[in-house]
């Protein structure tokens, strides 16, 4: 780890000022915010991130870690730990897909340390990004090329693919957020603002070193998930090599509003597929207003994976993704309206 | 706990190292206290085949706490590497400027932090 100067921000205002040079996710940002540290400290040890200045947001979390549920929806403070959100009765009862996306992620220890705000900002697991001995990595060194495209890319992106970087976003919680149309509360040098979660991560567009639409010094303070008749009959299905403690090869967040077996509304998020958690409105359109049959689910899955681009090592992914989505839909169909298993 | 095999194999016995291992007092090599230790960090090759052309160690040597940096140029010894068990060629750490595999140790930084 390279040396850094450390400061503990007393409150959100000071944190914002001290964090004025945090950038938009670039790895050469001079300042990094420290929350749970599970992504940051790991990457600093690997010499991928080399901030000169660490601003510890520990003291800031009071006031931004509450979990509240009401008629308009769910309000989650960004500094709530993954474990706290996962076990909250209102989250489990009203938004099971959110609880499951957290419970199936990482390990118990990591869920105790990591904040949900940090979770959606965590860096990709691409092994070439994480190993600085690989010179060609456009995310670490803009313009140097992409090693993964011609190397081991088994778990790399297939949707929204850009030839400058095929790394994928590892957040499970983000997949649930994008499916449920969450918004993000931000606090920064120019005040507070709110954005759709789906706009938090920028398309790669040849510039993979710029990852988010955050302005320098901005901190995520909370998430809002709107209430809706689909949130309770929801689940997160995560497919991976190991049974636990591993990132997804393919995952799906699905939320259903059913009348009999007729889909009134559906929300679908895909994980393990793209540079950001991926909403599939193509699939939703094919399911809405129709009976939820395996045939219809299959057609929706094909639509969701239209345009998938593989690079040799991840050729299996489109079919795996389709099957994951079909299985998730049919499983969600068997849940009772309040989300219990029938 | 009576176990059907113990009639033939003898009674189940608690490990003599049990108490030490569950209390964290059992010592593994990196737990042995060494007064004022220096630490060695292995620098490894990022290429799988080739030759080291040269080292530029001035900046690294100037880092606070660094005591020495060993490479094939200054490690000393100079003995020929041992013959392999099958009599074939073999190679040893920091022997020469040649890189034989990815991750080969090419320098050892010794520091006392």
């Amino acid at each position, binding site marked *: 780890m390279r040396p850094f100067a450390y400061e503990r921000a007393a409150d959100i205002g000071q944190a914002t000022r001290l964090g004025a040079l945090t950038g938009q996710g670039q790895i050469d940002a001079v300042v990094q915010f420290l929350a749970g540290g599970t992504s940051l400290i790991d990457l600093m040890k690997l010499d991928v991130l080399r901030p000169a200045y660490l601003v510890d947001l520990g003291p800031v979390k009071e006031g931004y870690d509450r979990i509240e549920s009401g008629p308009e929806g769910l309000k989650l403070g960004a500094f709530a730990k993954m474990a706290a959100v996962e076990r909250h009765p209102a989250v489990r009862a009203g938004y099971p897909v959110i609880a499951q996306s957290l419970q199936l992620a990482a390990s118990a220890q990591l869920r105790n340390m990591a904040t949900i705000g940090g979770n959606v900002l965590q860096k990709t697991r691409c092994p070439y990004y994480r190993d600085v001995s690989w010179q060609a990595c456009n995310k670490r060194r803009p313009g140097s090329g992409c090693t993964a495209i011609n190397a081991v890319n088994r778990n790399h992106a297939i949707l929204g693919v850009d030839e400058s970087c095929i790394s994928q976003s590892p957040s499970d919680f983000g997949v649930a957020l994008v499916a449920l149309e969450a918004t993000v509360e931000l606090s920064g040098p120019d005040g507070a603002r709110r954005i759709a979660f789906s706009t938090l991560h920028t398309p790669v567009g040849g510039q993979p070193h710029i990852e988010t639409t955050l302005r320098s010094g901005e901190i995520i303070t909370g998430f809002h998930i709107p209430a809706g008749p689909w949130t309770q009959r929801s689940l997160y299905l995560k497919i991976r090599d190991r*049974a636990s403690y591993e990132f997804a090869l393919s995952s799906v967040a699905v939320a259903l509003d059913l009348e009999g077996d007729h889909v009134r509304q559906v929300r679908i998020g895909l994980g393990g597929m793209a540079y950001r958690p991926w909403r599939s409105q193509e699939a939703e359109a094919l399911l809405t207003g129709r009976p939820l049959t395996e045939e219809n689910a299959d057609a929706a899955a094909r639509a969701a994976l239209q345009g998938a681009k593989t690079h040799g090592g991840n050729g299996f992914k489109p079919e795996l993704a389709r099957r994951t989505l079909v299985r998730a839909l049919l499983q969600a169909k068997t849940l009772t309206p309040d989300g219990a298993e029938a | 706990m009576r176990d059907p095999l113990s009639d033939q194999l003898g009674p189940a016995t608690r490990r003599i190292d049990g108490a030490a291992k569950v209390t964290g007092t059992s010592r593994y090599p990196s737990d042995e206290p060494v007064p004022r230790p220096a630490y060695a960090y292995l620098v490894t090759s990022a290429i799988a085949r080739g030759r080291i052309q040269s080292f530029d160690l001035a900046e690294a040597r100037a880092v606070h*706490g660094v005591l020495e940096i060993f490479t094939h140029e200054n490690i000393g010894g100079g003995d020929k590497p041992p013959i392999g068990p099958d009599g074939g060629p073999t190679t040893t750490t920091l022997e020469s400027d040649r890189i034989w595999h990815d991750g080969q140790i090419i320098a050892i930084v010794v520091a006392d932090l």
Partner: protein
Amino acid sequence: MPTLTRRAVIVGGAAFAGVALDRAKASEPPVNAVASTSGGNSSVRLVVNGKSHSLMLDGRTTVLDALRELLHLTGSKKGCDQGQCGACTVHIDGERVLSCLTLAVAAQGKRIDTIEGLARPDGTLHPMQQAFIDQDGFQCGYCTPGQIMSAIACVHEGHADSDSDIREYMSGNLCRCAAYPKIVAAIKQARGQMEKV
């Protein structure tokens, strides 16, 4: 404003960085600043197993390294140093966490409990420690302190009621000797003797 580079901050120290970064109030002093230039140490207070220690350490020091190198509490093990194996598991403010991914400076003011603090002063073992011996829940023993600290928290969290729950919620602790079945057996023995917190 001068370009803020890593070199400038490290050479100039925290004072320079504080002025350059804090655009709104240039004169506001940093709060709890621990300047960590190369070669610079700072004073950090850690409370471990109920005892307070004042340590001079580099800002990059993790809780794991502070425990092992400075406090000579080598019970917590360095298995991967990347937060992937769980051998470094300790309790901070009563919760199981990975000490290799926690900076010591960030752990100030919190209660840190390690394997060394489990047994009573008279030597009586914690029920979980005893259960690991009774059930032979280890072979080489290197992962064992982390397994025990993790297991205790697992029971307190209410995540040890079934075999499948135990396996799932202990998945953050790897055991290369594959003592897993006996670790599950140990946890089942101990949970009946412990209270859920």
